[in-house]
């Protein structure tokens, strides 16, 4: 029973990904577009007229250690002054409240123990448990929040790399016998302090200089715009991928493969189940591939993998629902393509795939909620800002959307089933 459905699903995925032109379009297309749009709009505060006002960000330093200070210095540096408008705050809850009120795009909360967590244990050389700086993001300002998050991540990664260097040095010293084990602790302490003990220290100063550069060039510009455009382009092309899938529903009838399936010992339900499953699986794989690729190629952080998976499933289901509705409404395969293209673009614009519209026109904001793009993008933004709980609403909305669309499409298909299933 299930076997035949899976057979048909798998066949559809093979057909979809067996055509290199299609793969180029639905996988390379969004990658290139996300990069391109990231570069174009990434010029934030620069002289190119696209000026976006400086991103208001609150900084709560509960640590006070050397690395926390270094991070604060980076945020207030000249290099970032066009981009960020940082403000120091003592109270984390007050900072959260202000972000929730939309007064700041994000708050960076540096918890106690942040600096120490980067320093290896002087005796063993082992790393203590990580204490991450927390970025509280305003979902209403996805780009600003993504930029702040990117800066903090880049900074943390830099420091961690330097620490790894120190550790490696220690291990080498110990194994080569250059330093007797009894003195290892003292040398480690020295090395650690050499790197991070004092912000005025030459070594630390150079680290931070590098940081400023990397943050303002890759970090501040295209890199974080990419964090917005990667999901938005992936979702835009998800709608296109399901359109291609939905098209096969009618194309297979015309080309006789659908009737041929029905002449085999397979029920009409299994054939439809397999086709719908195939549309879903194609969309799911396309979205997953893009997430994997951007993670590998651009070190983009999508957030908790399990929740990303949940969101991808929900988004692919909702998109499949739209694909089915389009196929149900279209008279032939050609119409599915043209209708699907129109819906893909419309949803892309409404759902904020090109520019976030929600602040521009409240009416459009409401309308954008019929698109899977908008909900999924909200979900991905929340996830990337580490706000796992905020993903539940988009996931629920996408699932409800899927159920409703499946039901409506099923009703229409039932009415024209005779025409659909027989040649």
């Amino acid at each position: 029973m299930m076997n035949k459905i899976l057979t048909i699903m798998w066949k559809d995925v093979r057909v979809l990904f067996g055509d290199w032109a299609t793969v180029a379009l639905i996988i390379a297309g969004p990658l290139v577009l996300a990069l391109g749009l990231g570069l174009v709009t990434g010029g934030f505060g620069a002289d190119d007229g696209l000026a976006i006002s400086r991103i208001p960000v609150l900084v709560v330093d509960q640590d006070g250690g050397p690395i926390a200070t270094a991070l604060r210095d980076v945020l207030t540096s000249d290099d970032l002054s066009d981009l960020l408008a940082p403000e120091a705050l003592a109270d984390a809850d007050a900072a959260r409240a202000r972000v929730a009120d939309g007064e700041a795009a994000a708050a960076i909360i540096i918890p106690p123990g942040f600096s120490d967590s980067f320093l290896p244990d002087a005796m063993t050389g082992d790393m203590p448990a990580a204490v991450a700086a927390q970025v509280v993001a305003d979902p209403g300002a996805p780009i600003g929040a993504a930029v702040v998050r990117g800066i903090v991540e880049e900074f943390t990664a830099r420091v961690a790399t330097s620490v790894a260097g120190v550790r490696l040095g220690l291990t080498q010293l110990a194994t080569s016998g250059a330093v007797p084990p009894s003195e290892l602790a003292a040398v480690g302490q020295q090395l650690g302090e050499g790197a991070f003990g004092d912000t005025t220290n030459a070594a630390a100063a150079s680290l931070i200089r590098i940081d400023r550069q990397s943050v303002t060039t890759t970090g501040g510009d295209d890199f974080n715009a990419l964090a917005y455009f990667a999901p938005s382009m992936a979702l835009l092309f998800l709608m296109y991928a399901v359109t291609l899938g939905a098209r096969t529903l009618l194309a297979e009838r015309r080309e006789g493969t659908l009737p041929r399936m029905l002449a085999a010992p397979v029920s009409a339900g299994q054939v439809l189940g397999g086709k719908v499953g195939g549309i879903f699986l194609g969309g799911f794989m396309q979205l997953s591939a893009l997430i994997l690729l951007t993670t590998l190629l651009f070190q983009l952080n999508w957030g908790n993998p399990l929740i990303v998976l949940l969101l991808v499933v929900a988004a692919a289901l909702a998109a499949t629902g739209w694909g089915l509705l389009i196929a149900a409404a279209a008279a032939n395969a050609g119409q599915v393509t043209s209708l699907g293209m129109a819906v893909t673009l419309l949803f892309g614009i409404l759902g904020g795939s090109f520019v976030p519209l929600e602040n521009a026109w409240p009416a459009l904001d409401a309308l954008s909620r019929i698109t899977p793009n908008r909900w999924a993008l909200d979900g991905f933004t929340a996830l990337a800002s580490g706000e796992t709980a905020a993903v539940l609403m988009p996931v629920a909305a996408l699932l409800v959307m899927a159920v409703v669309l499946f039901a409506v499409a099923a009703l229409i298909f039932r009415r024209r089933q005779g025409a659909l299933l027989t040649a």
Partner: protein
Amino acid sequence: MTPPILTAKDLRKKFGDFEAVKGISFSVLRGEIFSLLGPNGAGKTTTINMLSCLLPPTSGTAEIAGHAIPGDTLAVRRAIGVVPQEIALYDSLSARQNLEFWGRLYDMRGQELTQRIDEVLDQVGLADRAKDKVKTFSGGMKRRINIAAGLLHKPQLLFMDEPTVGIDPQSRRRILDMVRELRDGGMTVLYTTHYMEEAEELSDRVGIIDQGRLIALGTQAELTRVVGEQETLRLHLAEEAGVALAGVNGTAGAPATMSADGSVALFSGLPGVLRASAVDHQIVVNVADAGAALPAVVGRANTAGLHVRSVDIEQPNLEAVFLHLTGRGLRD
């Protein structure tokens, strides 16, 4: 006598007001090749679609391998293999991937499926192209994979709907040989065609179908007996028959005209001439005795100015039967 594997009883199919199949009854015996011979639009595909459970009959019933239509359609579909008239394959998949897919739908898997795919690929002579995408195949090669997909599960009864349409002579030859091999291997084949030669070459028995009705049924010998002792003169012309006739002069009793159904009046009144009709570049003249009628027929053609390139004398064949029964050629 061998028992029938298929029995159709008064099958009818209406599309709206139009009745495409108007009550067809016949049996196919186990182990035979049975051909449904008829011109375009005769209702061959509609009949096959009803028998393969794709179209519910408007009325009438059938029984295949002991299972009823309508009713036991799942068991029927397990017993039959279908080679559709239109090539139904996935262009962007390889030949093997296509066969894997269709095999799985017939509950085949694993080693069994792989072996069977190798076998049928050998059988259709495309083992060396197994890995290539079907879109890179010629029409004849696609037709052969289309057939292979219907053979995978070794059906008791195989429906082949015009499997040689639009392909080169070599592929056609190969397919016809294969159909006979399948029959010799124990499979029963229900074959449809509008090529008289194919039906003659392959069939153990033939049903002639026209405008939704089965107008004759039997072995070739039985059918040609219908025509009596008739023989056929086939005049080969340099041009399409209609064009050639338009350019010549007939007589009052025998005008050089061709009616809509293809019958030709030019030879009317000659002794022994029963009827004549135009088919492609030929005029087919049914006569009681070919030797006796030949001089007069050729003489009339010459007088009229019809340029005849050559004349064949033929013993009764299915074309003549069709002509006899309908007054039309098969390929008009």
